[in-house]
């Protein structure tokens, strides 16, 4: 079955420097990542990682806002790079987004209605104004807002939580098949986070919208998704069923991350140890292998020499770590299939 949206072995490198190219600075933002969402059943996938992990880059690649240096993004089997205008419009209609900053997402020149009327004007130009207005009001109610208190106002006249909810409404307006949500609640107050995540999940359960939820907060990722992809400095380190990855993390980085989460339970304190992290140096001078090697408590010589492939575990998880080299190596198709498991 063709996937609805698929990133196949995409890499993205950013170069900066002059045209004359004397001192070009190369940053590898994403290194050989793969992700797929099927047409059905609708799923929720989390992409988790810290800053610099490449999660935002991956989301922007999947939204077609930037082009991959290697690999390609496919929508219903068609590569984004080869789409004509009609196919592109169909793709844009099916794949919507919610961004992190509820203020910057609005054009300060217009009232918030502009953000809601824009998609209708572009995708359904023939829709009569009255129907459009009714549709907008209906979707605002779905996300828990009152149209009379929201419409007609400028962005700065609404609170952060309201603005973000309007953004969710905008994304849901034309019933997309996928919503890519890039840290949708990190800039919103705790009391509102649940409400916003709830409306996203409701859309998923009632309308079959798939979600790609990008975050650095593993607790919300656990609550919201079925599958999770952990990224570290651009590489995939662990993928699979979210219960297994969170409750029983296999990759040393995932373990480090989970143990660092401040649990809201005073009886489970971090303990007085820790403090400084040991950063090891590669024996050969240059690290050609696993990106996590300098910080890994289980680092071995081979970790510096080559990057570990993805090893398959329990048929719904995979980890990129030589500690698991007794497990079978997964090829590209098998990695993609991991996302289909529920």
């Amino acid at each position, binding site marked *: 079955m063709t996937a609805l949206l698929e990133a196949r072995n995409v890499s993205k490198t950013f170069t900066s420097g002059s045209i004359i190219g004397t001192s070009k600075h190369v940053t590898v933002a994403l290194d050989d990542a793969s992700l797929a969402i099927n047409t059905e059943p609708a799923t929720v996938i989390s992409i988790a990682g810290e800053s610099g992990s490449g999660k935002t880059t991956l989301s922007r690649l999947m939204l077609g806002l930037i082009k991959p240096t290697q690999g390609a993004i496919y929508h219903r089997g068609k590569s984004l790079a080869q789409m004509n205008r009609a196919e592109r419009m169909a793709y844009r209609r099916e794949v919507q*987004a919610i*961004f992190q900053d509820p203020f910057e997402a609005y054009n300060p*020149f217009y009232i918030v209605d502009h953000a809601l009327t824009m*998609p209708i004007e572009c995708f359904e130009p023939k829709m009569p104004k009255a129907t459009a207005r009714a549709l907008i009001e209906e979707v605002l109610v779905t996300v828990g807002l009152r149209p009379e208190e929201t419409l007609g106002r400028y962005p700065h006249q609404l609170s952060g939580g309201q603005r973000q909810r309007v953004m969710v409404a905008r994304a849901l307006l034309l019933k997309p098949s996928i919503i890519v949500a890039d840290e949708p609640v990190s800039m919103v107050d705790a009391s509102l986070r649940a409400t916003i995540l709830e409306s996203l999940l409701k859309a998923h359960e009632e309308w079959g919208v798939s979600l790609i939820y990008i975050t650095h907060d593993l607790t919300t990722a656990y609550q919201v998704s079925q599958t999770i992809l952990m990224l570290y400095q651009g590489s995939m380190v662990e993928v699979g069923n979210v219960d297994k990855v969170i409750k029983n993390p296999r990759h040393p980085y995932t373990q480090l991350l989970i143990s660092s989460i401040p649990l809201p339970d005073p009886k489970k304190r971090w303990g007085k140890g820790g403090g400084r992290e040991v950063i090891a140096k590669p024996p050969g001078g240059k690290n050609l292998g696993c990106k996590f090697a300098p910080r890994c408590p289980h680092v071995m010589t081979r970790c510096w020499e080559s990057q570990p492939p993805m090893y398959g575990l329990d048929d719904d998880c995979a980890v990129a770590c030589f500690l698991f080299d007794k497990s079978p190596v997964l090829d590209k198709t098998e990695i993609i299939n991991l996302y289909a498991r529920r």
Partner: protein
Amino acid sequence: MRTFLSYCRRNPQLAVGLIMFLALLLFWLIGPLVIDTDDARPMSALPDLSPSTEYPLGTDSTGRQLLPVLLQGTLYTLQIGLIAGSVGLLVGIILGFSAGYFGGILDTIVRTGADVILTIPTLAVLVVIASLIKDRLDPQNMAAVIALLAWMWPTRTIRAQVLTLRERPYVEIARLSGMGDVKIILKELLPNLLPYLAASFVGAVSAAILAAIGLEALGLGPQTDPTLGMTIFWSIYYGAILRGMWWWWAPPMAAISYVFIGLFMISWGLDELANPRLRRAA
């Protein structure tokens, strides 16, 4: 209207500048009704007359009455400034937006072109061009000549502004909503740059007037039309300073100073309006 007035109270520079220009506008509208511009022609009166009730600003050595000359001259000078400034800004908008938004080869060409021409001393080029076509110059050609070199700075600065706006999330949202590129430029980017463009316009007009007066003071301007700069040139040519004919060179200088102070105040006031720090006060 009320918000505009209360804003003027907070931004006195803009208010003063606008008032100055309003006064100038009145001068133009009412002036020709009171003063006959034909009197600005040579031999409309006896030459070298000092100011009197009949000739409030006296006459110059060619018999032009200087009060009408002041009226006519300010009109011409501002005409040159506005035409050259507008053309420069318009070209700047088209090139700056295209280069900034689309990037790539277009950007490299526009950017390199503007940068290269910017390094050439504009006055030198203008002097060469003006001296070549001196005898066929009138205020409109002057404007065209100056406009040739008025577009680079607006292009550069507008491009820079577009580059910062292009990455804003709301532009990306527009792209994700299926909006085409041209529509994004017109509907999403342009409205947010209006204060900046207004400030740029005032800057372009000031620069054009300065260039025009510079050329004219050297004699490289319309030979028969009494622009402010040419009046100063003729006053030097005829030795008005040595002859104590202050009514010839002082009024044009006062008029030029007034125009520049007015433009400066407006541009200072607009700077504050265009500053994004102000706009996020909520």
